[in-house]
């Protein structure tokens, strides 16, 4: 959920929107979003699954805990919480440790 109004912080009304894909669905974020913030803003709380098939989301949001790993444009183990979104980026849920490319 995006915050529309805040007593302390200004909430920019004019935003530059960026579209990326999560599990092949188009998702709209803003130019300032990370993958994590854009997913949460759009109601996606599950970013992937552990090896034992438990759902995973973010935990620390500052790049420390590795809870938020996703696959970006085919590359696994990208931290959703400290990676800005880009137009057309393809984000997939990571399952387990992510398949290496080699």
């Amino acid at each position, binding site marked *: 959920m995006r915050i529309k109004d805040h*007593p302390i912080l200004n909430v920019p009304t004019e935003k530059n929107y960026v579209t990326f894909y999560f599990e092949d669905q188009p998702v709209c974020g803003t130019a300032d979003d990370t993958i994590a913030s854009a997913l949460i803003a759009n109601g996606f709380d599950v970013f992937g699954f552990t090896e034992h098939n438990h759902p*995973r*989301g973010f935990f620390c949001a500052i*790049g420390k805990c590795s809870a938020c790993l996703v696959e970006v444009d085919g590359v696994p183990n990208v931290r959703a*919480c400290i990676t800005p979104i880009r137009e057309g980026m393809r984000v997939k849920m990571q399952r387990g440790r992510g398949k290496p490319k080699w």
Partner: protein
Amino acid sequence: MVRHVKALIVGSGPAGLTGAIAIAESVGSGEEVVIIDEGIEPGGQLSKQTHKFFGHEGFYASTRGFEIGNLLVKKVKSLGVEIIQQSTVTGIYEDVITVYDRVNNIVHEYLADYLLIASGATERFLTFKNNTLPGVYGAGAVQTLMNQYRVLPGESFLIVGAGNIGLIVAYQLVQAGAQVKAIVEASSRVGGYAVHANKVKRLGIPILLRHTILEAIGKDKVQGAVVAGVDERFKPIPGTEKEFVVDAICLAVGLQPNVELVAQTGAKLVYIPELGGYVPLRDENMKTTVHNVFVAGDLSGIEEATTAMIEGYIAGYNIAQELTGKSFEDKIEKMKRELEEFRRGPFSKKVRDGLRKMGIVFPEGGYREEQQTDRGPVGKLRAIIECPEAIPCNPCETSCPTGAINVGGNINGIPQIDYSKCIGCGVCVMKCPGLAIFMIQEKEEYSLVGVPYELLPVPTNGTKVKLLNFEGKEIANGEVDHVVLNNKGKTHIVFLRVPKGYEDVVRSFRLPEKAEEFICRCEEITKEDIERVIDMGITDYEELRRVLRIGMGPCGGKTCRSLTLQIISEKTGRPISEIQLGAYRPPTMPTPFEAVVKSALSENDEVSENIQGGIENE
């Protein structure tokens, strides 16, 4: 290619930034001083702090955390220091320091004459059933999302931990429009500052002491939480479980220093629980056991942002001293005295105890502990300070234009007001970071209470409100007298009209709920309207009717009379049978005037026709 710099600083949080300022200022330029930071924007955890900082003006007291971050970053940049973001120092090897640059997906190599490691801390995790379920978040993570990205990861929250972080996040969630169901705290007392706890209590958020979380409920996402009471040994007490319906759980159970990098330099680590676990052994100049490696901030012991800034300066001046061979002892001494002043209070006990284990001794005490009992001259508009603990903070003293407030020398002292000097200007209310100062004035018919207010919407004059006490409990009805807007500092003062005698207990208010309970459908009179008039002393149905127009609409009181009588009965304690039920006046249903006139004239057909025509022509 290996890049060689004079000073490499890890982390652009408060300690790293002040360290950079100290080095660059003393050396004369920021050239070859580089900050490497993992985040997207510089500022570290300052960027997500929307509350005003304690401390004193020299360290930006009463300025909001994110604004302090902006000021420091600006200063660092103006000194020519390079800040490299989205880059992580991944290894400190014997021969080189590696930095992974996420933007270009490449590893860079560095060599540095001096290292200042200010890598901060990580939030602690907690064990309970389902603790990895999405919706269980670190408190700091929620702050990052809401305050930096303006996104809320839930609508209703449970917070685990009543230290300063848990309390601050609870308050900030409400500011962002979320609901906080409760804060649970395993120990028997609130760990954070009382002024932070009071802010949260006034919002009506319960703080459940001696409680812990047992389980997160939900399949793919948190849908609730089970909490239970705990005994002295922190074991859950069977039978005390309760469930909260929440969609997010925030863990605010402490921090642990990020020691990986400092360990890789070969610096000695020591285990000191009071400082957060393993920490680098260092001296009072922030130097580790490796001659050119310095540390500052949470990495060197969990504390807070102001002391992190001071430690950053101390480390920075020492590095500058070694780089230039010049002496900056006076600056270093000044900062050490600041640190000593800040750490004298009761909240620094853990840090003092921890540092003593390293052989660094900080004195305690020497601050005023007595609270003022004098509440000032009745009838005069004046400030009332409710700041009961010795915390390192003094903006009340420094902001008062007449010098009426003092904290008694040491910054940890409890503030007192000299009422002969207070002119009732309200500046202190707007400046106090703890929102711990109120205005009061006893008037003839009612009293005024001015409360600091940092929420939306800002009410307008005359708005009817529920008056709340310091625990957020509803105690009376009142209204907004006027609002003193503070568009710069964003802490407004809302002056409430409260019943006489309530000026010492009203400390907050709630705006009327949007969903109102209507009693009289025709005239749109709510239950609250009726109760308010009854509270004014009007308990007679006829009188209520005259004041409110209740029952005077088209239905003639058919729907509302019995409900109104019931409310009068509830409020006054008189049985309905004893309440005057008021006159039943005709007509019992709206009758067109035409019909009345027609009936009156029906015996004289001639005239009747004329009149009828006349009416039709109109």
